[in-house]
């Protein structure tokens, strides 16, 4: 599945330092984002957000006229879109506060452009499923909205647990997801002792999505650590 539609999303950048704004703008622009608005203060950001509502906001924590957390609260009142924080403060309480209020992710400065782009794409993918709900795998497609797999023109339904596991893997497509994170996604907090169940579920998912389940290509095992979902076109 192509992610090109995500590049059309409107992004609001807020930082009180013009040079940093320029740099982030140029990073995103180079990657292919062309609908970017910038603001240097809370006041300016609110005006911008009202004029053209963004689909993602990237906020600095420390702004000249207040904190990025306050800005987030005001933005959230006028629209529901993901928020990514840029912070020069690596302290944990700030991070947790950000998540507690509904921030979607944060990046501690200094950061590399590819890290920023990766996070932005991950958040957008999570928040905007796109018009084409089909996730393209090597031998099949997943339709999360219908909870089914399409293989050889055959529609195979997914169970609730299989859906949860595939969603968690898809959110991190191309990256390893640990056994513990998958158990937590399927069985909630305190996911101890579900390793064998997880293996059984993975086997059943493979039967649905792979051509040869014993030699998986789309859903691969990273021994002892976790699993990785390989998606086509990424």
């Amino acid at each position, binding site marked *: 599945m192509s992610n090109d539609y995500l590049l059309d999303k409107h992004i609001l950048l807020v930082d009180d*330092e013009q*040079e*940093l704004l320029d*740099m*982030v703008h*140029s*990073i995103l622009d*180079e990657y292919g984002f062309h609908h970017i608005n910038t603001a240097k203060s809370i006041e300016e950001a609110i005006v911008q957000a009202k004029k053209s509502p963004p689909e993602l906001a990237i906020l600095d924590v420390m702004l000249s006229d207040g904190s990025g957390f306050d800005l987030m609260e005001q933005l959230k009142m006028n629209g529901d879109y993901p928020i990514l924080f840029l912070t*020069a*403060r*690596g302290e*944990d309480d700030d991070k947790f506060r950000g998540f507690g209020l509904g921030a979607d992710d944060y990046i*501690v*400065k*200094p*950061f*590399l*452009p*590819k890290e920023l782009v990766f996070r932005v794409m991950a958040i957008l993918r999570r928040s905007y499923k796109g018009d084409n709900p089909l996730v393209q795998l090597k031998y099949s497609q997943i339709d999360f909205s219908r909870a089914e797999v399409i293989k050889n023109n055959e529609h195979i339904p997914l169970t609730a647990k299989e859906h949860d596991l595939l969603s968690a893997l898809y959110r*991190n497509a191309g*990256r*390893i*997801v*640990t*056994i*513990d*994170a998958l158990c937590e996604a399927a069985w909630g907090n305190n996911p*101890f*002792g579900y*390793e064998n169940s997880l293996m059984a579920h993975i086997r059943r998912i493979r039967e649905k999505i792979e051509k040869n389940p014993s030699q998986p290509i789309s859903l691969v095992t*990273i*021994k*002892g*650590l*976790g699993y990785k979902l390989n998606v086509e076109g990424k």
Partner: protein
Amino acid sequence: MKSVPKLIRRFVGILLLSSILIVIINVIAFVALMASKIPDENTSPYSIAKETGTALKATDSGNYMLSEDISARLAENDIWAILIEDDSRKVVWKTENVPATIPNDYTLSDIANLSVGYLDSYPTYTGKHENGIVVLGFPQKSFWKHIQPSWDYSLIADLPKTVLTVLFINVALILAIYVIANIKLLKSIKPITKGIQDLSAGACVHVSEKGLLSEISANINCTSDILQKQQEQLRKKETARANWIAGVSHDIRTPLSMVMGYAEQLENSPNLSGTERQKAFVIVKQSKRMKNLISNLNLASKLEYDMQPLVKKQENAVAIVRQVVVDFMNMDIDDRFPMKWNTDEKLTVCNISVDKNLLKRAISNLIQNSISHNENGCTIYVSVVADNNKCIICVEDNGIGASDEQIKKLNHAPHYMVCDTNTTEQRHGLGLLIVKQIVNGHGGTVTIDHSKYGGFKVALMIPQ
């Protein structure tokens, strides 16, 4: 304070013991004195009177005759004697030294009186005689006689009880006097002992400067003020230092973002030549080093000055380590640093009480160390072992490793940041220092060694 009641008990004990001792000594002295003054059998007036009665013999001529030795004894002691006849109650014999004031006729009541008391102020004693009664008159003021030696019967019968009661009342009285006298002293000692105790605990102390020991109280207050001032200064200094480091590392982050951001864009720019892109690559690489340094510097100073409290919870160490390893694997795009998970597949849970974020940081630092010190790439082996109530986390590589001497230094020499002497050789990074600080904070140990894979090995032992 436990020693104050002990002190009081000891003082009261000494007091009671000394009172009892004094009473005993007095009784002994009294008895001895009495014993020395009580006349013995031979010299007692009663026996002399009795002997005189026996020794006075009637002669054939109707007169009386006293034996020589008794006569001499009476004369020697200035004792006079008379014999009063039974029937006539008249004096029928007398010694020569009988004073003139002594009458010659007696009534029965006179005799009854003189037998227990005095005759004309002479203490008198009587002896039995076949014809009457012998009366001996001792010199005036030689004896003191009880004329009416009669007491209520119960007084004598209850004497032991009475004596004990009196003794008990005396002791109680002495105790009461002592306690009252000491309450004031104790009142002023108590806040002082508490003050000294609090002082040793590092608390701020203010003792009331009144009472007997006001001078000591004032000194304690003064000491407390000095200690508090010093503590405050030390705390201020440490906070200032930690804040300074936090401030610097914070302020460097934004400019460094721009350096890193543009350098990476240049590195990937198709418009630049290969050498120019190589230069940009070096800038990115060195910026990453600076990034690691500032974040380590801040955490190391916070851990050193106890400004980073550990938030411990029961966590599964296997899951934490697994997550860190996976994060690195997900970042390592060009696969120059493959990672091997060497944990026994059966070990899925190893619960330890840890600060999850700090443990993650420690393991990240170890993996980052292997990456930083092996520019040409290496395989990194990570394992978790549960062993007898402890969890051993091991990170090793097959890279360039370190010499025996370097390993010895890393294990034993203090880092320059936490060393109060001037060391120039211990200039290695902060990564390992932070690992040690974090593991020590959890009561564990860090062991650095050669790896069996040929490179460097660090084992963290954390108690459960």
